[in-house]
């Protein structure tokens, strides 16, 4: 199948747009969630919407499964080729097609890296607000598929709030456009449904994104706490006070240890947790708003937040006096996951959400689970959103450790649901959490979700075996994916 598919796709697209062979199969058998793996038959590298359409039509004609892949930074196996077939890599679809500064929107192909969108318009005082931690490499299409968040989600929202229109190759291979240069077009909100559908409703090839004015003032502080509980309680208190921070990011002692080991970063004596607080102020929208001044400055908000931290066992606060110092404060947050590589050969970052008032209770639970299974854990997460990311570090060459990490993750997510939360805040369900959907949703809920999927995806070719559990033809494969890692 592999050779024949590659041969036919080369004829269709041109030889330089198709790659195959054992090395390719290994490189594309998983995304950044490496526990479940499966090899594709062939990988295509389309350069346009027309190329993608041609591949999807070919797959339909030959009943071959297909899945889109951006930078492969997904953390739940969303772009893993669960039933083999064709991986459609968007890495060459990275062009900006139109920029309209006056109307504050930009049209790009979906393989463009998130950061490049902002780079293209920063000189005009604008940016693309979603900022996942992987933004220097993760693609617009991947962000759309996963409805990505990021540190500034707290104030600016997730990806869906910043997508105005998109071009979709439907699972059957037709081209459909939803939305356009203006938000809110009438009719059912298919755009809102497609964003976050993990590439199961079709392949997004181009999108109009909303450009948001850069803040006119940004104030950033890094506060050290003598206890993780104090830090989490401060998070709730800051938000409850009426301040709307742009970001509230928390790092625990495990992360501080990794940062010290990897980069030599040091923190005040006795630090058990760090809270990064950023407040900002958008430009005024009208001359009248400008005259009135529009409320507290970002610096005043930050000082209020730091004062609240002092009431919750903070031991030191550093406040950035300029952009260089701001970048230095962010360094811990941005390098945290990378630093974890010093602690063990493999990292699995879990993703769950809880009401932010439950953070202290939830973190106690995470540490107890880690201790019980004997697997190291560190936490670096979007505390303002209650979006937890326990990072387990281990050696995936040891099947026992892999099994423990999976079990620990499942227990943590079950606890999230018990506390009124969600099994995913931004990584998606993919294949990782298929079996956990039943914790959040009843059989009727899932049956209706299957109906929603069938509006676009009526057979099992487009990114099969993702999001919904117990799909026909998938259950028997689950053990095999996991076996690939063991």
């Amino acid at each position, binding site marked *: 199948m592999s050779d024949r598919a590659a041969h036919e796709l080369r004829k269709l697209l041109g030889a330089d747009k198709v790659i195959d062979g054992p090395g390719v199969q290994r490189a594309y058998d998983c995304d950044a969630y490496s526990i479940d793996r499966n090899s594709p038959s062939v990988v295509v590298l389309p350069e346009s919407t027309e190329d993608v359409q041609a591949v999807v039509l070919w797959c339909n004609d030959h009943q071959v499964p297909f899945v889109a892949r951006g930078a492969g930074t997904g953390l739940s196996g969303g772009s893993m080729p669960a039933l083999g077939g064709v991986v459609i890599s968007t890495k060459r679809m990275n062009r900006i097609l139109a920029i309209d500064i006056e109307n504050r929107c930009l049209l790009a192909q979906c393989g463009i890296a998130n950061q490049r969108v902002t780079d293209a318009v920063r000189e005009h005082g604008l940016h693309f607000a979603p900022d996942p931690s992987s933004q220097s490499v993760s693609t617009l299409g991947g962000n759309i598929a996963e409805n990505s968040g990021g540190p500034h989600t707290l104030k600016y929202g997730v990806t869906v709030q910043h997508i105005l229109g998109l071009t979709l190759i439907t699972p059957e291979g037709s081209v459909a456009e939803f939305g*356009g240069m*203006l938000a809110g077009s009438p009719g059912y909100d*298919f755009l809102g449904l497609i964003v976050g559908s993990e590439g199961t409703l079709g392949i997004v090839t181009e999108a109009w994104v909303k450009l948001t004015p850069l803040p006119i003032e940004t104030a950033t502080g890094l506060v050290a706490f003598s206890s993780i509980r104090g830090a989490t309680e401060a998070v709730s208190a800051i938000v409850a006070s*009426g301040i709307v921070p742009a970001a509230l990011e928390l790092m625990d002692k495990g992360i501080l240890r990794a940062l010290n080991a990897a980069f030599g970063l040091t923190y005040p004596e006795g630090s058990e947790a760090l809270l990064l607080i950023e407040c900002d102020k958008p430009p005024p929208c009208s001359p009248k708003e400008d005259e009135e001044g529009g409320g507290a400055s970002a610096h005043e908000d930050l000082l209020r937040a730091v004062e609240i931290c002092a009431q919750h066992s903070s031991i030191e606060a550093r406040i950035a006096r300029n952009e260089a110092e701001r970048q230095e404060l962010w360094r811990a947050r941005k390098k945290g996951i990378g630093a974890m590589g010093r602690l063990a050969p493999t990292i699995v970052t879990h993703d769950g959400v809880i009401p932010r*008032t439950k953070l202290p209770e939830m973190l106690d639970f995470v540490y107890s689970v880690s201790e019980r299974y004997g697997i190291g854990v560190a936490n670096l997460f979007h505390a303002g959103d209650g979006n937890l990311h326990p990072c387990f570090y281990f050696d995936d060459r040891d099947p026992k450790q892999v099994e423990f990490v999976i079990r620990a993750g499942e227990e943590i997510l079950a606890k999230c649901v018990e506390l009124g939360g969600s099994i995913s805040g931004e990584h998606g369900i993919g294949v990782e959490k298929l079996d956990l959907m039943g914790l959040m949703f009843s059989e009727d*809920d899932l049956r209706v979700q299957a109906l929603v*999927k069938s509006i676009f995806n009526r057979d099992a070719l487009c990114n099969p075996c993702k999001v919904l559990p117990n799909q026909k033809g998938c259950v028997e494969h689950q053990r095999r994916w996991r076996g690939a890692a063991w």
Partner: protein
Amino acid sequence: MVNAILKPKSVEELAEALRETSLPVTTGYGVDRFAPPCEDRCHLDLSELSGVLDFSPKDQVVRVLAGTKVNHLGDESKLDLALENYAARTPSINEVLAKEGQCLPFLPTPGLDRLIEQELLLTYSCIGFACGMGFPHLREHWNGTWRDWVLGAKAVMVDGTEFKSGSGVVKSVAGYDLHRLLIGSCDTLAILAELIFRTTPIESVVLPLPIVGPVRAASREDVAIQRVLRTDFAAAVDLAGEHLVLADPATSTIWVRLSEGMELRSFAYDWVRTSNPYRPEFRVDAVQSHFMRRAKGIFDPSERLNTGAMVIV
């Protein structure tokens, strides 16, 4: 002709009502505002499906029933309407949230009275109606659309099946976001029964500055809502002329009173909708229409739910 008017007070009663009727079903809030084209129908008045169920101020999350009012906008008791439960009204969402310094950012706004008068004022302020219609609003630029505030929902299908989507936390990407599909769907796929919102501090809500036009949209008059590119906004306001009700420079949206034979000028990339989802001027493009048809066929195969709304052809 309306064969029966039912007023469910709970999600269970709503589901039961749907299971027991085989007639076409229309939904409304207190007033049967629109004139649907079906001859025999069961009308579900959801105004008594009302109340704030949970509010966690520190988490900034509130769960409400669909008939709950967002605000009591102005002195509604002076309106010439027989709203039976008015005297014993449940607190509006913003009355409950305000005690903790929070709100849904749908607050009384200068010029809003020109748009929503008399009975429409009452109807419009029901959260289920506002979300079901998904109308643009005057704080959208700063605070986002209805869709942006809704974290989750419980809804009932035409056969009485209850289901939920989303969650009660401020961020979730678990499963398909069906609640987003229901916002603005005019209850044509399923009926919104319960909604979970993210709330916001009152002090963070910006007072909008709309352009107030020369006319009001009087009782039972429909308005067209047109959104254009920023670069076309001044021209759109000019062309609306004496028909202009309101205009929002922040989102380049205009509200225009619809009169017989009137045609709105089209602009590149614009969209137009009407306040009455049964009017033929409610425009959707061909691709949108194709998938709306598919969705309707899957969710409501017997086409009994608010049939004719949103001009699904």
